[in-house]
């Protein structure tokens, strides 16, 4: 049986998310056509402490905010971070 095609995504962590995960970024493979919400699920499985902040997590593809329904493309760069605090 042929496996479903996958895509490679780079996920970056900012602010205390980098401390919680112990890394600034990680590469994750997801099924082609996955949404940002599905990727977030995968990330929370890999880094369970991030699940505590799931509702308040801000999600970005490239340099633009996106919602959970956003369909990802191969090699997309995703950023996850807590609420911002400039000023």
């Amino acid at each position, binding site marked *: 049986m042929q496996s479903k095609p996958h895509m490679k995504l780079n996920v970056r962590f*900012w602010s205390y998310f980098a401390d919680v995960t112990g890394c600034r970024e990680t590469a994750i493979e997801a099924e082609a056509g996955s949404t940002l919400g599905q990727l977030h699920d995968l990330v929370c499985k890999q880094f369970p402490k991030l699940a505590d902040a799931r509702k308040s997590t801000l999600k970005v593809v490239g340099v633009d905010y996106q919602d959970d329904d956003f369909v990802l493309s191969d090699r997309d760069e995703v950023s996850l971070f807590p609420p911002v605090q400039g000023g």
Partner: protein
Amino acid sequence: MKTALTLSPDPIDEAALAKARSISDDMGAVVTFSGVVRGREDEAAITSIDYESFDDMTKRQFELIFTEIEQRLPIESIRLVHRTGIVQVNESSLWVEVVAAHRAEAFDACQYLIDQMKLRVPIWKKPIVT
């Protein structure tokens, strides 16, 4: 609308920024705001704040906010400086200048800019405790 955005680890030289101001003859309002690091954060004494910025996105989000202001209000120019890295207590971490013909739109734009920054611009603070 003219805009200038600076993200820098260097101290904000407000006198130099004021000296470099350029306004046309029709402008009657210059609103400036300086955000200063307080000595306490969540009831704890601190010595400084370490500001982290996702620079590419920070620039993108500020540009979007500037465009929204331009569409809403008659503003001649906005200059904004935000520190990155360690900023000591009593030092300015943010400096904003808005130039307009009248004070109402200048204050309005300054308030909107800072409110939106605090919602959308990816900059985070890590207080350094004494």
